[in-house]
């Protein structure tokens, strides 16, 4: 009897150790994930071989009349809105493929992006967005609304966009448009054709 008890005890301890190991391993990998991301362990372990894409409409600047002009692009589709939003910003920085102007300086880097429950996307850029910006009302308006419109138009959960620079709220990009509030999209700036 004592022997079976001892064996049972060891088996139990062993099981506990294994369980604890699995638990801590999982929670460790959870922590690495970015905030706002939906844990999709089931999907990621099945690892689809081919990444599916989706079409997005980006808004670039046409300098002659300062209108925003749509340009379609494929991005990797992702169940996470944050990931897709990051892809939209990356494409805006990469620039137009049809000769339009990107109103984000090429040096600009996206530092972080998160979306609140209320649908406000906080988009944090490197200081290049300010330092390499040409200043001028027209330039600032096109920068703000090419970002805001491109995000809100393609990603339903995003209602408003708050632009941050290196993690902080900034007064303006170059002395004109106030950045102290989240922006609603303004589709009146888009060319009507």
């Amino acid at each position, binding site marked *: 009897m004592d022997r079976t008890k001892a064996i049972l005890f060891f088996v139990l301890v062993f099981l506990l150790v294994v369980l604890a190991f699995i638990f801590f391993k999982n929670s460790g990998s959870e922590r690495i994930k970015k905030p706002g991301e939906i844990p999709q362990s089931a999907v990621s372990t099945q690892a689809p071989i081919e990444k599916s894409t989706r079409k997005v409409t980006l808004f670039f*600047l046409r*300098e002659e009349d300062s209108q925003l002009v749509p340009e379609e692009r494929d991005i990797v589709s992702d169940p996470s809105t944050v990931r897709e939003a990051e892809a939209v910003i990356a494409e805006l920085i990469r620039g137009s493929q049809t000769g339009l102007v990107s109103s984000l300086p090429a040096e600009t880097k996206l530092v972080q992006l998160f979306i609140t429950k209320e649908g406000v996307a906080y988009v944090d850029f490197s200081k290049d967005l300010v330092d390499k910006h040409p200043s001028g009302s*027209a330039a600032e308006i096109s920068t703000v609304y090419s970002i805001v419109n491109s995000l809100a138009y393609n990603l339903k959960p995003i209602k408003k966009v708050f632009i941050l620079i290196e993690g902080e709220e900034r007064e303006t990009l170059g*002395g004109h448009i106030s950045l102290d509030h989240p922006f609603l999209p303004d589709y009146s700036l888009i060319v009507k054709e």
Partner: protein
Amino acid sequence: MNMPKRTVKVLCGPGLVLLALVLALSAAGASGSKELKTIVIDPGHGGMDLGAKGKFGTLEKNITLAVSFKLKALIEQNLPYRVVLTRDKDIDVSMENRSAIANNNDAVLFISIHTNGSFRKKAQGSETFFLSLDAPDEETRKLAYMENTSSELEKRIEDENKDEVKTILWDMAQSAYIKQSSQLAEEIQKELNIFLGTENRGIKQAPFKVLKGVACPAILVEVAFISNPEEEQKLIKDDFQRKVAEAIYQGLKKYTKLFS
């Protein structure tokens, strides 16, 4: 009161002199600025803030100051207004201070002067802005404002967020003048088209930091693009700057006639 008579006399002497002085000073002050209302002109940028830069090295901050001086002279020579500049030399002035200068001087008009800038050199023309209100947010703010009785407000100001409350209140200042601001923008834009012959980019609305806190009709003029080499060449010419000042002057003159 058992004050010795001599002390009363001694006290009365200098007291009377002081009283007379104060009266004389206040009378002089009143008669000096009694009828003259103030227009505040805001030369965009300045100091470390260069504004937009032209291909030939022209700096926006210098053009805006030059035009502002010309406009000030035109107004003071021809209209019964006193003109205050938010800066009269090449110095940094914060956005808050620019609007504070207008409010502290009881300005009746606020005109911010800029030259435009874009990413490449093609953009051209002139446009006039007035403040846009982000409707839902403004509504919330307005409600928050109405719900606060003055005593509650005072109590809040006692709290640590003194500056924040002040900003919220000033932030609302311009919202009461949007209609007049749009009329002022319209009059000035018309004259810019006539005098300058630059492309008409029209009147527009945007959330300009410098306009938000101004408690009177307020506009921001973007005269030509300094980022366009052809327009930059125009902007550095004294004659063109004179025309810009003349256009704004004519526009504001017509606007003031609408309200007198």
